[in-house]
């Protein structure tokens, strides 16, 4: 048996590489010299960051990501530039068809959400949703690797999605997030309920003794008096539970951080003729 290959994927970039990529994407001229990156910033970026040149250093062995933490505030500012606005992009892929099907133009929307649950025990996460635009028969979505930026010619041919279709996709996306949040939060809410139930169990025992008392014929008291008291306690309990849940739930936020409109294009040459995705 062969040993497994290095599992470190491209996503596991180190901080220095990431900082360099942010600057480059913002128009800086970046040069790499071994484990150092030299970036000459454009005027807007220079104004934001307060310097015209940035030097980013990896650790001597390049093992631990140290980045520009020689100047930690600068690192923070560069990261902020990378996060400063949600990106919306448009990508295309050659249209694919099923067996015997006809290739047609199809749209999908990909949403990237950042979900902050507001509970210490549940970490923030980045959630990706890809949903078809349009009702039935949405066709086969090309693999992620097949999507690329459209050429100028393709750009002119691309049609905009229907607002109604996007609206229905949007509500579906929200429903899916609901399920996701419910799934994540359920154990924590259950735990909270359990704690409250435990607390109330003693009261329940008390209720039962009252009921037994009532049934045993001591009917001199006003009708439903014990039951009324019991109900009051139960109400308190439910109110407490509701308040606790509300308090936790207030902090849960889904932030749409990026989106992409994916389109499969029927070109002059089909994907098969070109031998696969571009």
């Amino acid at each position, binding site marked *: *048996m062969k*040993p*497994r*290959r290095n599992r*470190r994927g491209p996503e596991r970039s180190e*901080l220095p590489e*990431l900082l360099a990529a*942010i600057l480059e*994407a913002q128009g800086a001229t970046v040069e790499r010299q071994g484990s150092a990156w030299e970036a000459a910033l454009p005027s807007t970026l220079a104004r934001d960051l307060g310097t015209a040149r940035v030097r980013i250093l990896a650790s*001597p*062995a390049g*093992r*631990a*990501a140290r980045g520009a933490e020689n100047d930690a505030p600068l690192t923070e500012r560069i*990261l902020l530039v*990378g*996060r400063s606005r*949600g*990106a*919306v*992009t*448009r990508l295309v892929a050659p249209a694919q068809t099923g067996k015997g099907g006809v290739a047609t133009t199809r749209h999908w929307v990909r949403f*990237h959400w950042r*979900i902050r649950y507001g509970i210490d025990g549940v*970490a*923030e*996460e980045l959630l990706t949703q890809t949903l078809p635009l349009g009702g039935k028969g949405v066709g086969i979505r090309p693999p992620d690797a097949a999507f690329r*930026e459209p050429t100028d010619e393709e750009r002119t041919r691309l049609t*905009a*999605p229907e607002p109604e279709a996007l609206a229905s996709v*949007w509500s579906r996306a*929200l429903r899916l997030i*609901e399920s996701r*949040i*419910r799934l994540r939060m*359920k154990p924590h*809410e259950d735990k909270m309920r359990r704690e409250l139930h435990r607390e109330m169990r003693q009261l329940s025992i008390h209720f*039962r003794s009252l009921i037994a008392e009532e049934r045993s014929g001591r009917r001199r008291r006003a*009708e*439903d008096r014990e*039951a*009324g008291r*019991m*109900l009051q306690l*139960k*109400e308190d309990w439910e*109110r407490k539970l*509701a308040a606790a*849940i509300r308090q936790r*739930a*207030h902090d*849960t*936020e*889904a*932030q*749409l*951080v990026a*989106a*992409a*409109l994916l389109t499969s294009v029927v070109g002059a040459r089909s994907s098969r003729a070109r031998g696969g995705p571009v």
Partner: protein
Amino acid sequence: MGPAVSRDGRRGVGAGLFRGFRVGDRVVHKTFGEGLIVEVRDRDGFEVLEIAFPEGIRRLTSLYPLEPLRRAPRSDGAESAPTLASPRAGSLEMTPRAEFRIGAGAEEMLQRILTGPYDPLREHDVHLRTERYTLHRGFDRLLCLEHLHDVQQYEHQVQACMTVLRRMRGRSLLADEVGLGKTIEAGLVLKEYLLRGLVQRALVLVPASLVEQWDQELRRKFDLEFAILKHGTAWWEEPLLLASMDTAKLLRHRDKVAAAAFDLVVVDEAHRLKNQKTLAWKFLDRLAPRYLLLLTATPVQNDLHELYNLVQLLRPGLLGTYRTFGREYMRRGDRRMPQNTARLATLLGETMIRTTRASTSIRFPKREVKNILFDLSEPERALYDDVTRLVRRLVQGQKESRRGAIKLTLLTLQKEIGSSTFAAAPTLAKLMQRDGVAPFRPEVEALWRMARCIDNNAKFEGVARIISASREKVVIFTQFRATLEFLARSLRAGGIRVATFHGALTLREKEAAIAQFRDRARVLVSTEAGGEGRNLQFCHVLVNYDLPWNPMRIEQRIGRLHRLGQEHDVHVFNFTARNTVESYVLEIVHEKINLFRSVIGDLDMVLGPYAEAGTFEDAVFKIWAQARGDRDLEREFGKLGAALLVGRKRFAAVEELDRRLLDGLSSNETPS
């Protein structure tokens, strides 16, 4: 957008398919009649109701045909007081179970999907990478502390963990003094990285003799299931791997270990990496993990360059080149003494953490040892001597090449007879069946009969006296199940509450045995099997009913009581019969290694060539079985003791050197 977010920007989750029963509602059941709901519990898709009916409280689901009962207003126009299903009583609107808010800017992005402008793909990717990067939470709070079992946390351990995570970024030399819990610190760091998803694959490299102990600790305290590197298994598929350094660096393993790309590597007793020309150092250098923890109490043994070599693994270049380090930081003519200590301390502070006992407020309990030498009863003495004679004849009579087959049985027999006559009897019975001892069969049978005739042991009487002399809880260790059962039987007969703990118990039974001992029993009789890592700090009296021939095993026994968290001095009673193997072993470990009085950090270093599993036992057995008389025994055990004494002195010298050297150089402070 049409169906976007609800009025207040929040969406409710979990409307549920419930019938909406509430506590206090009155219902009618076709069999039980009218009832009052006293409890409502949500299950998946329905409710479980507790309803008070006239003949008692019943638990039903809302799937039953239940009719809500509404009361009619009284004839005088007032509502019956209080109406249980009235708005006042039932007005509680249960808040949806989970809610979320959509962050600002979503509408704008949706508009841009429709009409543009669109960002270039590169910018989109960078944005996502940045988002992903910023998901990592800061290390201002340790997540792992809530996930530990049976770990008493100490401030210096948490501080060290924070320093490793925050300041040293997961590459650190943990050089705490012996007994301060380096293993716990490494476990904390490991668990924290795993919880945060920063480490998916981890490798722990330890000396062979400590593999089992680490496995137990990681499993029990940190809830981490490590696979152990074994030939013939697909160990490289395992995300968490525990291995001895010697096994991992073998030619047939080392490429696979390197290819497995571990994110975090922990090396215990890391002073074995002091020389960069060794295979172990090169092997670790090749692994190049993202995070690396080196654990040793004695990073310098002979030469400051050893420290340089360790730091070179963690932060290459931090101390300059090999030559410049020597020139700048080592005193000329004395390889052990530093110069430019302030600067060296600053540099080492970037990667080394050293906590000393003096710097903590922890009270370290003493070990009070009492060796109880006694004489065997006449029949026991006769049996012991006859068994010894038989063992010697069998060993000396066999050719070297054929000795191995029977040696293990004879070694076990000799140990058993040192423990109790009850332990030896089954082995004598088995020995009778073996072909190799056919000429001695009548003799073995006679010994077996003799062993079966003895129904009490002189040693037990001494133990019983100690137990009855005080009211403290006592742990009695033995190596053999038969002895354990004899002890438990005899103590119970004396009216003492006894819990037993041995390897054949299931995990649950073991927990129950410890709980029984903690809560009710006075005495725990235990074999060593599976007991490592179990918390027995609530007891501080230990009886070694028999003595293992391996100092590591003795240390593990004492370590179960004498550890961080023990508040009393630990009393150790060693029961040894005169003129037995155990009396010689006791002399060596007590007089030469001084094992019972102090914690020895690295027993491996003291034991030297005898550190490998079984080698010390073999050496003891060889001396015992091949001796022609008492003079032989004195001489050979004397040599063995002298070898260990050298090891002990060497270790003490190294410890002292490190104390002098490093205490001035280190700090364990977390920057604000």
